[in-house]
């Protein structure tokens, strides 16, 4: 491992430590001026960040274990997603295959580095299989709606998320001095979580034009744009630790991650709102809601992966 990367990991851990300290200190303070929910929201973000940092630090040693962990997260997210989505008995067999074949298979292929297969397994094979399996059962009531739900669940929770561990196997053009596979994933996760935090922060500081009030009462255009801009700036600052050769490339990549991440959390909120209060009430309560924590990663990972692969990848 090179010195730059080590310093990068160290910096992130230090910042996380400070953020955790501040969060806990705010939590303990009794002051009416503080918004309880905002502090809880801040703390839960920091917790998720610790978790992912731990996962990726592990990736430096054992990439396979990281793939396995992401598989477990995807499995759990898929569980939450399908639980929130009404399906009928006619979808049961299709769902069985989704859970016990396609999900493990996707991550196995990522682990084996079979890009040619895992990039099409779900969009092509699972996509068609789900529709056909549901048709074989013979229940045509709301057919399109039902299969679309299962396909969407599999795409978002499994396919999109699997591109995060796939970064471990992405080879980019020789920048040997600074390139390290786990470093790429670490850079990606750091930027996603930082942009999430920055957007949330800016939305609270200054928000005039809400994007979609009914879906997310906090997220505003100002927050997203200011957040994305500050993430791009962060990219420039982090250039010394980035896998990309020039500062403007790192910055542009950070911008891409920030914008897709924001789109992800807004979309996931829309899905949850659609399912109404069932979400928080009955099932996911106590499980912490994995889905809500990975929404921005799900959207940013495949875009970041493919943009990087297109511009910097080697065949």
């Amino acid at each position, binding site marked *: 491992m090179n010195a730059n990367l080590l310093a990068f990991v160290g910096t992130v851990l230090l910042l996380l430590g400070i953020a955790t300290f501040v969060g806990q200190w705010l939590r303990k303070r009794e002051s009416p001026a503080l918004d309880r929910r905002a502090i809880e929201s801040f703390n839960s973000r920091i917790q998720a960040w610790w978790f992912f940092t731990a996962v990726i630090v592990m990736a430096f040693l054992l990439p396979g274990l990281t793939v396995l962990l992401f598989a477990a997260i995807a499995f759990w997210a898929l*569980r*939450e997603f*399908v*639980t929130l989505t009404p*399906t009928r*008995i006619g979808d*049961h*067999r299709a*769902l*069985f295959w989704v*859970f016990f074949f396609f999900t493990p298979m996707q991550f196995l292929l990522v682990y084996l580095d079979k890009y040619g297969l895992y990039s099409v397994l779900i969009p092509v094979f699972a996509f068609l299989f789900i529709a056909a399996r549901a048709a074989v059962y013979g229940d045509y009531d709301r057919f399109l709606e039902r299969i679309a739900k299962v396909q969407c669940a599999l795409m978002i929770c499994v396919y999109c998320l699997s591109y995060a561990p796939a970064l471990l196997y992405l080879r980019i053009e020789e920048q040997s001095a600074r390139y390290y596979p786990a470093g790429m994933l670490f850079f990606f996760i750091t930027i996603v979580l930082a942009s999430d935090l920055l957007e949330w922060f800016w939305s609270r500081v200054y928000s005039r034009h809400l994007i979609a009030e009914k879906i997310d009462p906090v997220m505003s255009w100002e927050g997203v744009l200011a957040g994305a801009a500050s993430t791009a700036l962060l990219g420039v600052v982090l250039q010394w630790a980035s896998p990309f050769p020039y500062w403007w490339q790192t910055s542009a990549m950070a911008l891409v991650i920030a914008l897709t991440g924001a789109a992800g959390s807004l979309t996931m909120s829309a899905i949850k709102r659609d399912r109404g209060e069932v979400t928080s009430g*009955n*099932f*996911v*309560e*106590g*499980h912490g809601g994995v889905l809500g924590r990975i929404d921005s990663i799900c959207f940013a990972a495949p875009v970041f992966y493919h943009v990087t692969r297109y511009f910097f990848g080697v065949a």
Partner: protein
Amino acid sequence: MVTETLLTWIARAISGASVRWVESQPDTCQRVYFANHTSHLDVILVWSALPTQVRRLTRPVAAKDYWSRGWLKPRLAKSFNAMLIDRTEIKVHQSPVDLMVREIGRTHSIIMFPEGGRSSGESVGEFKSGLYYLAKKRPDLELIPVYINNMNRILPRGEFLPVPLLSSVTFGPPLWLEANEPKPDFLARAREAVLRLKEV
């Protein structure tokens, strides 16, 4: 002991159940847990949702004709200490309720599904009278309503492969048979108690 732990873990893993006690606490006193019935896993699910101390004293009531068939099922039934009740041959002084009263003695609690068979899961069927007669014979038992949510999607009727979605088991506040309460009223009240847990 090992099978018990193993079964509990498997049941929890497949059902992803979150367990909630609403206006009610786990206790080792003699109780009757009565729940809606939508899947074959319900018995194991409710049983494994109880804390270990309570679980050791709790015996699920299960149908003899189903659970004594084959190789695996009798062994499973034995490991969670099921009380197998013959629902086909009912003799005088050997009625299911007599059997239950005798089997629980002064220590055990039971889990039962008063709907009789499995329902489709969207609604809770009418309750059979067993719960009433049991409450009449042993008015001291606490009757705890239990609502099982989403199990009908995890293992629907007629399917044998489970899909691991998330479910929940909700335990409600105890109720008792009131003095001179007519059978239909009591059964309707008990059913309402289960249904109410769907909303909380």
